[in-house]
């Protein structure tokens, strides 16, 4: 019946003067949009399944292809938009929960774009990072309450385990299963060369990544996939995943189709079985229970690993962060509602949670007020698009940031937001061998390193402009920030003044 027809989103435009019918696009498109005509020679396109991933556009040797938005107008209605109508059509058809990928695409305020940075003029000098030392080394972990020294000046404090990073930028959790092994390996290699960390997500650690365990954050989620003594001990730190910004209050669900032999080995479950991580950890129903899991990990690792608790940014985030700190977390990662995902129920992704900017500012403020800010390191997550976003996050109180979408874009991701289909033409969010082999870790790690190296330099430049030569002096330094076009309330929560003040 035609009632289920949903107009396509894009049109593939082929410049016939340029096209040489080589068939490159036919081979590249996993959505099977391009095909040979009956003559076996002429290449044609059916745009119905096009997701605008640009694989064909980028690889076309004669640049004959262009994707344009396909507009099939509905009667204008600010309330009943085409999107809501189409979503209802999909659900009327299937009875299914709507599933989407990547971060919240709705036009909610992006506070990074409403915060301006400071620079020095006359009264204190700016610093040129090309000629002067500029410190962006970042150290995560619980800091002791106070220093005590013996007579000769040597510290008598037993330091809790610390993690030294050469940049405040880490890679966020993306499990093997949600992304390909080649994508994970590229991040692992980049993390090692950059002196930072990648995060296994909740999918266990694949044996091919054992060389990178000093740069691995390993995750413990409610399904406990691949979690065992060695897994915990072969890591830089352990992260308890309570929530994810893209789907607060919702668990993970890797469908059986994506659990191939390799994924099954890492997760330690049979091939083809669903990997279900429900929303709650069933041994955590309270802050006290969280304390129990934190300490069980510390016991299993002889207190050698910091334990991180990752939560989604939700309404009472400040109080929750305080609770996590008191439960013994050494690092707390807060994931804002624009954070990415391989798959999340659309309604959750688009409606639940709060922006990282507000959550981070509120959490940092609360920890300071309670005098426990030094007990934990704060890691901000949930969509950092450029180095300026990172600088603003650090000035709002973050110790470090988790980035995932940006390095994926460096590896070819074009934000087509169909990760959940498992057909990623760039070999990132797929387990199909013919697609994953398109992503060569030996090349891609370099692109990721280039990106972070460039961002590192930009961070140093911005800091230098402020007259700051150490990232520690930027941390929580909200005097370096001014709001633009924000209400009193927003300024109050962010803890910043308005531009001009």
């Amino acid at each position, binding site marked *: 019946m035609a009632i289920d027809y949903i107009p396509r989103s894009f049109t593939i435009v082929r410049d016939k003067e340029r096209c040489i019918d080589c068939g490159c696009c036919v081979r590249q498109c996993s959505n099977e949009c391009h095909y040979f005509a009956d003559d076996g020679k002429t290449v044609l396109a059916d745009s119905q399944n096009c997701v605008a991933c640009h694989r064909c556009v980028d690889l076309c040797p004669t640049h004959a292809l262009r994707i344009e938005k396909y507009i099939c107008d509905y009667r204008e209605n600010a309330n009943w938009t085409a999107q809501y109508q189409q*979503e209802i059509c*999909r*659900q009327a*058809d*299937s*009875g*299914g*929960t*709507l*599933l*989407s990928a990547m971060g919240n695409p709705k036009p909610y305020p992006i506070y990074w774009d409403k915060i301006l940075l400071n620079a020095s003029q006359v009264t204190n000098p700016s610093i040129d990072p090309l000629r002067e030392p500029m410190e962006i080394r970042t150290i995560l972990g619980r800091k002791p309450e106070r220093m005590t020294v013996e007579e000769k000046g040597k510290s008598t404090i037993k330091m809790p385990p610390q993690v030294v990073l050469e940049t405040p930028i880490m890679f966020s959790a993306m499990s093997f299963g949600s992304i390909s092994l080649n994508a994970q390996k590229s991040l692992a290699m980049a993390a090692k060369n950059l002196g930072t960390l990648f995060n296994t997500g909740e999918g266990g650690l694949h044996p091919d990544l054992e060389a990178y365990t000093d740069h691995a954050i390993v995750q413990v989620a*409610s*399904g*406990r*996939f691949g*979690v*065992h*003594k060695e897994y*915990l001990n072969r890591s830089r730190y352990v992260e308890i995943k309570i929530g994810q910004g893209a789907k607060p209050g919702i668990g993970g*669900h890797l*469908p*059986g189709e994506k659990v191939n032999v390799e994924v*099954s080995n890492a997760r*330690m*479950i*049979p091939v*083809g*079985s*669903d990997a*279900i991580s*429900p929303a709650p950890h*069933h*041994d955590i129903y309270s802050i006290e229970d969280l304390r*129990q899991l934190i*300490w*069980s990990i510390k*016991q*299993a690792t002889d207190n050698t690993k910091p334990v991180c608790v990752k939560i989604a940014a939700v309404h009472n985030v400040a109080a929750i962060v305080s609770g996590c700190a008191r439960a013994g977390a050494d690092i707390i990662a807060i994931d804002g509602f624009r954070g990415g995902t391989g*798959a999340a*129920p*659309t309604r959750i992704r688009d409606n639940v949670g709060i922006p990282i900017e507000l959550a981070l500012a509120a959490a940092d403020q609360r920890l300071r007020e309670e005098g426990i800010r030094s007990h934990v390191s704060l890691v901000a997550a949930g969509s950092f698009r450029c180095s300026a976003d990172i600088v603003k996050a650090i000035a709002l109180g973050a110790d470090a940031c988790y980035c995932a979408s940006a390095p994926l874009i460096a590896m070819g991701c074009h934000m087509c937001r*169909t990760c*959940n*289909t498992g057909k990623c033409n760039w070999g990132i969010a797929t387990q199909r061998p013919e697609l994953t082999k398109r992503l060569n870790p030996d090349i891609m790690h370099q692109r990721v390193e280039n990106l972070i190296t460039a961002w590192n330099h930009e961070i140093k430049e911005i800091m230098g402009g402020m007259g700051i030569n150490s990232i520690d002096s930027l941390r929580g330094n909200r005097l370096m920030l001014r709001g633009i076009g924000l209400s009193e309330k927003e300024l109050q929560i962010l803890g910043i003044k308005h531009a001009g003040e």
Partner: protein
Amino acid sequence: MSIKAGLRGFEAVNEEIKQELLSKDKVVVEQVNGQRYLGCALDTGKTLEIHGTAGNDLACYLNGGRIIVHGNGQDALGNTMGGGEIIVHGHSGDALGYGMRDGQIYVRDNVCCRGGIHMKEFRAMKPVLVIGQNAGSFLGEYMSGGTIVLLGLNLKRGEKLFGTHCASGMHGGKIFVRGAFPKQNLSPNIKVVSLEEEDKKELEGYVKHYCKYFHEDYESIMNKPFKKLVPATSRPYANMYVAN
């Protein structure tokens, strides 16, 4: 020589146990009063004997070691264990064997809610949970592999073999139940089937172990019929979503 736990905190007790285990294969801890994480990640070849009430997360991440509790266990006993054996001469609290991937747990008496939740198997790793008396609600929730045996011994009048929402979300593994059980407490996705020859053989082995550990009579246990609970589908949520 044994270690006296007394009223000391878990860190001190566990540290002492760890030190003892460096030179010994078996350590006995007495006067245990709910200290947590006893036997945490205990390796193959090591044995820990506990007298008293073992605290939460007993034998978490158990790594092949053997734990004998002369007393009761509390919550999350055998949490995320990867192998080994736990024998409890008493009962256990909630979330027993959470996410256990291999090894065996024998509990003489009853267990509370969410026993065997998230039990999973992988290749030769097949976890086993044997419960002498009965179980609370949500037994075998999200279970995706392994075996639970529920013997129903010494049930008082009115006591049921398991609580509500039994095997909710279960999508792998099996649960053997002995005697009468409350069908109304089963989750809708669960099938009740008879034991195959292979199942019988497997079950006999576990029951023999149980009888040996707790001095029960094998014949009288096997005299009552067993049934097997299995999930109707291994993909209970396969058609839940529509791509948007």
